[in-house]
């Protein structure tokens, strides 16, 4: 079970889970119309380091903008049952590989032993189904947009131990060495 904390109304934190966050895919002008294509993720989790977020908003007057963040790194949370079926991106017309939940690979995913995925199982009071993060999927959102989203659509924050575990596994996956 994943431990969680509640910090509604506070500032953006590493491990925050926020509803309905958009990734702006493309902006283009087509025949006199501006088209903005965006993917709206039902749930995302903040991956940017807590200390960076804290320094960004430090309360003391800053002589420079050295600690300013251009954007915040997020990863989508997918319903793990959709991930097992390989259908979590079906509304984007993408078919992913299915994972048999009853076989070794499925068990390993739930036990966080598959490097690519991070499984989260929330306490019963939290309205989120068992979820998985796919470390191949991450994107950045501007600080101001995400803070605005947090104000309106904050859900919960991962507890510190689980936050660190997620951070460490994400970093390990990103820095993996691809052998031929």
């Amino acid at each position: 079970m994943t431990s969680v904390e509640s910090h509604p109304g506070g500032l953006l934190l590493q491990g925050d889970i926020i509803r309905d966050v958009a990734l702006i895919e493309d902006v283009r002008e087509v025949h006199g119309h501006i088209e903005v294509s965006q993917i709206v993720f039902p749930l995302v989790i903040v991956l940017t380091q807590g200390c960076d977020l804290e320094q960004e908003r430090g309360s003391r007057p800053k002589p420079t903008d050295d600690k300013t963040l251009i954007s915040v790194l997020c990863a989508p949370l997918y319903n793990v049952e959709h991930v097992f079926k390989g259908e979590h991106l079906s509304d984007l017309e993408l078919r992913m590989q299915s994972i048999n939940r009853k076989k070794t690979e499925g068990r390993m995913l739930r036990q966080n032993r598959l490097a690519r995925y991070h499984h989260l199982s929330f306490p019963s009071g939290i309205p989120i189904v068992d979820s998985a993060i796919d470390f191949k999927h991450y994107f950045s959102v501007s600080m101001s947009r995400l803070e605005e989203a947090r104000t309106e659509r904050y859900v919960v924050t991962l507890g510190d131990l689980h936050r660190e575990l997620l951070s460490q596994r994400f970093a390990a996956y990103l820095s993996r060495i691809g052998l031929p």
Partner: protein
Amino acid sequence: MPSPPDTPQQIFDAGYVGRGTESDRVLNPPSATIPVEDFGMPATAGEPKGSSLIRPPASYGLGKPRRFVLRARVVND
């Protein structure tokens, strides 16, 4: 409040979900399957004149990621 879009052309004009060619979107807008009341809210008064931008719904539960293409007419005035 204006009526929610319900025909493919209205959905296309208002903003829609899906991808593919422009004609695909008009002919087969996936958003046609979204309940009308979930489709979204009209643009607010602060948006540019002539905008046909429709906001995505505030929430659609714990579903899957979806693509929205918001469309606004460029107006020179």
